[in-house]
């Protein structure tokens, strides 16, 4: 799992302070650093790439609007994730919660838009199956899995983002992995055949 590239904490602190004082260039650098991580979270929560792009824009505009409220009490990415999760909840209330699997099981373009050799095509299909298994989870289980496995956040960090207890995070992860064991049966079959 690749973690998003982060600056040293001092450098990032300086960037954030500059952005809080109105330096749009500094905010752009923060955007460039974290857009992949935030977009990935939104994508897995909503299951729709086009909607995820819209929500990504909303999240960063809201982040800029409330940047002065960030007081360095947590990681900046955790603060961004919290805004993203709240915005995803808003979008989920507006949209149907059912995500058709065909929205995810496509041509693999979202994973790699360029033409791929056979090996990468197989890898792309593997990712599609993992994503499809993920999207079969309920939203609250998906949230904890994405936050844990995309950025390897601790239970406490996840609890802070989702505003629940670490015990709840543990319980949801347990249920999620148990359910994924069943959802990932197609992948096991695929791996045997390939």
């Amino acid at each position: 799992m690749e973690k998003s590239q982060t600056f040293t904490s001092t450098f990032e602190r300086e960037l954030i302070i500059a952005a809080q004082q109105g330096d749009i260039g500094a905010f752009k650098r923060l955007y460039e650093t974290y857009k992949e991580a935030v977009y990935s979270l939104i994508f897995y929560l909503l299951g729709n790439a086009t909607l995820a792009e819209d929500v990504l824009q909303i999240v960063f505009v809201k982040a800029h609007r409330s940047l002065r409220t960030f007081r360095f009490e947590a990681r900046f990415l955790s603060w961004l994730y919290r805004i993203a999760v709240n915005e995803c909840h808003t979008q989920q209330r507006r949209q149907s919660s059912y995500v058709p699997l065909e929205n995810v099981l496509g041509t693999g373009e979202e994973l790699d838009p360029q033409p791929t050799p056979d090996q990468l095509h197989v890898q792309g299909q593997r990712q599609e199956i993992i994503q499809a298994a993920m999207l079969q989870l309920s939203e609250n289980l998906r949230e904890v899995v994405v936050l844990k496995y995309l950025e390897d956040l601790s239970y406490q960090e996840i609890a802070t983002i989702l505003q629940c207890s670490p015990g709840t995070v543990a319980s949801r992860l347990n249920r999620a992995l148990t359910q994924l064991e069943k959802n990932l049966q197609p992948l096991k079959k695929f791996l045997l055949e390939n």
Partner: protein
Amino acid sequence: MKCWRIDLQRKLIRYLHKELDLNSVSKLENHLLDCNYCRSHLAQLRSSHSVIKNLAMVNPKKDLWQSIESNIINESTEQLVKPTKSNNKSYFPHLPTNLKVAAILLVMLTTSLIATGLFISYKKQQVSNPSSKATQKNFPRDNFRLVAINEMPSNTEPHIVTEGYVKELRIAPDGDMTFRLVEQLGLEEPFIVCEIIDPIRLTPPTIGSKVKVYGVSRYDDKINHKWYEVHPVLNIEPIKH
């Protein structure tokens, strides 16, 4: 055989993610030596863990910074125009009250004279400049035909009003602002492009918001365009959910 040590079973997930203290790890590992049920459950968790840790980061297909920056600039412009709140203070505490009252009355009289003069010149301005912000309250909504975004190809009326969600706000080098209006967030089509030719006079909409857009319908047949437009936009109204 089922295990009744629910307290230890609950710790298996934390054990997997290395979220247990050393003492708890030691207790759990001792239990696992003797409990086939918990070993089996841990193996199940490990199986999905080993697959799902390959969950890949996903990148957006296009660069969204320009749109984000446009929105930020618009919001900053709006904030500059908003009046600031001031704290209640007691001014001139040492002046006698009757003097203060007389001064206030004098100020009120002067203000009302100035306001009357301004009102007259404002009315004159309204006649010569119908598209100013102050006239939006009296905007002639009845003169615009309601057309859905997907009905634009069959529309023949010049003055239309349409509804949709805002995406891709951009500022052109000449200062004009354009945004796309879609029927639903998450869908690229159908869409129309809306162009505000004087952003100072109209409050730009926020990305993701649902709005009504009044203006003149047209078709842009330039190469790489070929889309329906509301150009110019004459009025924008937010729609509350």
